[in-house]
């Protein structure tokens, strides 16, 4: 097994390398590319939505198509853009931050990625095969069970497959963080980003099974004639709402917590200060995750659960403002007294504070059940969640990308372009969504294909659309920045930001074994400690030795392909049973691969000490 990678490679072998890789850094890059692509797709759908709503009774798209657009926009953005981009950062950074050479389950890590990608591709195949799902990203029954065509079938199977990938990824990160930490890296010395990755993974573990079950039931209702949500058979559509939100609410914290982690690292790095109130920050993160499981019914205030349930869930929801507030103030006091350097990564983080605070505040307003009777399913809710998701999660991803880009690719993104992206996106964002609060209360429900003339909704919507275009410009400039940087950008050192955590103690991009020698961690912000004591890097915790590495494998790709094939069988067997053959083929491939995997021993390989020395000498 050769350990020198600096050989010239053909395209085919690079492709093969990526298809089979189990290296978390490469998987991170693949998550970045795929998630970025889906972000553009979802953004394009958003632009179509906004263009349709630019003036009253517009006919840019048809009613049915509009519903497909909004469903696919929401689904794509949440499951195929935001989550994978967060997984991209987690994959690229978490093992480095805890001083690990690898994740706990490299094979499963790759399987998780391919499942996500094939699930996403499957979902988007619906566009070309008779129409996308059109029942909203929440797919409320019975609209979803009765929706004609195969759109919702693609939703069910696409999310089922990519959801399985996410669950696998979550377990992988949990075990990685528990078992793979370097010596001295106790729990209370872990960087906040790692902590949030940990809590997010735990949320994934407990939240996704509810979605899995919900999707199964939906699938059975649509494809196999069961009656879970069919009132005619004694079924109950409210069950779907509960299952969806038991998953759905934790899901939004799954998205935001890693973004919080990014901001914590960015704030402390660029104000050259230790994170203020580290213990409280950790505690708040855990508390948010914990409370996140008890509030889901705040999405169901108008379902008719009764005043007792509504009040309980209202108060429980409001409680989340407390730990979140602790975080906001701790960030502000991290900046307090610091030496604040404002670059692109920091701009996104600074832009986050007011934006997210507004979003959180409207969240608390929504939590007041009696007020939510007015807000629910209006543009006020749309405004709320874009403030927290775009102003929190998307800003966090942008911040993280600017911050860790040099670590991932060895080059710093262009600062001028970065600032331009930020300002256009930031202004566009507020322009788009602030006014939607008012639109909602002025009587504009969400998921409206058109709004009528003379209802006082024209100006607000036009402004909103204008803002969306600014965001698009910002995004396009960012893409340009990425291209320019990879073509022309200059190589940087391993530690361009005067970093504090372990990932900055190794070269950029890191070698595939990450750490030549596992570092010895002596406190929070371990690299900072060493630097402040005058040392250049980390003290190793072990002598230089052979490094054990996992073997790459094509099986994850093939397994996901199997499920992809089987899905078409499931979807089309409703009209013609011969499609069932695809189910057998696909599941056969999957089971076959699992069989091979369990029968074939995989001990990995070793990079020898001498080779390491040779590489260092180069």
């Amino acid at each position, binding site marked *: 097994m050769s350990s020198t990678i600096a050989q010239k490679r053909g395209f085919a072998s690079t492709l093969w390398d990526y298809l089979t890789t189990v290296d978390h850094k490469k998987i991170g890059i693949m998550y970045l590319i795929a998630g970025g692509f889906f972000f553009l797709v979802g953004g394009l759908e958003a632009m179509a939505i906004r263009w349709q709503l630019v003036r009253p009774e517009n006919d840019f798209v048809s*009613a049915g198509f509009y519903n497909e657009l909004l469903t696919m926009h929401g689904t794509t953005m949440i499951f195929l853009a935001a989550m994978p981009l967060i997984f991209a950062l987690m994959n690229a950074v978490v093992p480095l931050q805890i001083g690990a050479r690898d994740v706990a389950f490299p094979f499963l890590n790759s399987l998780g990625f391919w499942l996500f990608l094939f699930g996403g591709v499957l979902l988007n195949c619906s566009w070309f095969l008779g129409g996308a799902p059109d029942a909203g990203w929440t797919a409320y029954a019975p609209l979803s069970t009765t929706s004609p065509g195969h759109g919702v079938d693609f939703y069910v199977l696409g999310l089922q497959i990519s959801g399985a990938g996410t669950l696998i990824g979550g377990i992988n990160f949990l075990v990685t963080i528990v078992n793979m930490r370097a010596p001295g890296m106790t729990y209370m010395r872990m960087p906040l980003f790692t902590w949030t990755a940990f809590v997010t993974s735990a949320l994934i573990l407990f939240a996704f099974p509810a979605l899995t079950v919900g999707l199964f039931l939906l699938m059975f209702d649509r494809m196999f004639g069961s009656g879970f949500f069919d009132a005619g058979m004694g079924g109950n559509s409210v069950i779907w709402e509960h299952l969806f939100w038991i998953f759905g609410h934790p899901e939004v914290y799954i998205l935001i917590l890693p973004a919080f982690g990014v901001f914590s690292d960015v704030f402390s790095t660029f104000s050259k200060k230790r994170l*203020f109130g580290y*213990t409280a920050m950790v505690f708040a993160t855990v508390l948010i995750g914990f409370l996140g499981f008890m509030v889901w019914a705040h999405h169901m205030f108008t379902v008719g659960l009764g005043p007792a349930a509504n009040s309980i869930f209202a108060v429980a929801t409001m409680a989340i403002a407390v730990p979140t507030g602790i975080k906001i103030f701790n960030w502000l006091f991290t900046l307090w007294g610091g*030496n*604040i350097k404002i670059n692109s990564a920091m701009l996104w983080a600074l832009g986050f504070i007011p934006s997210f605070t507004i979003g959180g505040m409207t969240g608390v307003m929504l939590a007041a059940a009696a007020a939510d009777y*007015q807000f629910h399913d209006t543009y006020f809710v749309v405004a709320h969640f874009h403030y927290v998701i775009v102003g929190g999660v998307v800003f966090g991803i942008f911040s993280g990308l600017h911050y860790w880009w040099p670590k991932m690719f060895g080059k710093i993104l262009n600062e001028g372009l970065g600032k331009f992206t930020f300002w256009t996106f930031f202004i566009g964002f507020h322009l788009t969504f602030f006014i939607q609060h008012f639109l909602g209360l*002025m*009587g504009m429900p969400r998921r409206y294909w058109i709004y009528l003339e003379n209802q006082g909704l024209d100006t607000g919507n036009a402004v909103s659309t204008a803002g969306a275009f600014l965001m698009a410009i910002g995004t396009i400039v960012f893409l340009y920045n990425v291209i320019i940087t990879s073509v022309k950008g200059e190589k940087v050192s391993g530690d361009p930001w005067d970093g504090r955590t372990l990932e900055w103690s190794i070269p950029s991009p890191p070698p595939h074994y990450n750490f030549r020698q596992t570092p010895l961690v002596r406190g929070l912000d371990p690299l900072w400690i060493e630097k402040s004591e005058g040392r250049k890097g980390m003290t190793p915790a072990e002598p230089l030795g052979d490094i054990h590495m996992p073997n790459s494998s094509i099986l994850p790709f093939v397994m996901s392909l199997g499920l992809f094939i089987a899905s078409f069988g499931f979807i089309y067997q409703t009209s013609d049973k011969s499609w069932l053959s695809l189910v057998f083929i696909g599941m056969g491939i999957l089971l076959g691969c699992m069989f091979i995997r369990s029968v074939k021993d995989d001990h990995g390989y070793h990079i020898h000490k001498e080779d390491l020395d040779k590489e260092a000498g180069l």
Partner: protein
Amino acid sequence: MKGWMGKIRTLLLLSSLSLILSGCGKENLTAFLPKGYGADVSLGIIITSLVVMIFVFVVVMIIYTFVLVRYRQKKGQEDFVPKQTEGNKALEVVWTVIPILLLVIIAVPTIAATYDLADKSGQKDALNISVTGNQYWWHFSYDDQEIQTSQDLYIPTGKKVYLNMISSDVLHSFWVPSISGKMDTNPENENTMYIEAYEEGVYWGKCAELCGPSHSKMDFKVVAVSQEEFDQWVSDMQNVDPEATPEATSAQEGQKLFEQNCLSCHAIGSSPVAVAPNLTNFGDRTKIAGVVDYSKENLVDWILYPEEIKPGNKMVNAPYFGEHKDMKEFEDEAEKIADYLLQLKPSEITPDSAQ
């Protein structure tokens, strides 16, 4: 309840004034100008919470601005290493306790209002109306009065009216922003909510739960009239003769055509057909099918091309097209039917009465 409501109300008056000035929405549609009890209570909570939120935001922004101005890196100080503080117990207690107190300020009235709006104690003696949400129209059945009507809901002002809501197909949500917050209609259970309009008027209602392609066109109206007018409307509606012959000949022909082609789904009078809107007082509507301006031309269009006006609506299943007639003939017939429908004005009490 009363104490804080009073204080809120002054606040509310002030802020609604400023909202009117800034032109926040269309009267009888916007939730900013409540014309009914539910909307009033909700706005009270909205404003209470908004005030607290603005306070929080201001505090955050003051610290934020100060920090950015004061501690931004100065030229030549790039290497300055600030003191590495670990935290501050006292401060942390402060920003844990104060938010809790602020939340209590919101939570208490919220709970009170939530229970208030779910109060069913007066339901027995009050007017009860069964509401059915359908793709994409609303049906109203007045429980003890044997009145069936669609699209326009007539209620008396100043009274709590209980709505018992259910759906015949998918989920919908009944929302009249200026009267009251919304309540979903589910297919498997009945939800109850009450509404009370303070003053006469025609209030715009919307469907607020995604229910298919024409979800955005599932509008309806709440027509609030005085108690006397309402009583008269009730008796007028009860005394409708569904088979009454219209005066004009074209309308008479229209009636025949209507009976042959349309009555399989629609109904006139109080027979409870739930496949299509009840057209008893169709002549008094302000909109056709909830969204189209009321005119003969538009009505003819609707009869001939319902799909183009409300995509996916269920009238499409039986469009008014035979196999072997030409278009012109259809138009003629549709006009006759329109003539018939337009003169269905059983009551003096119309949306115009609601001033």
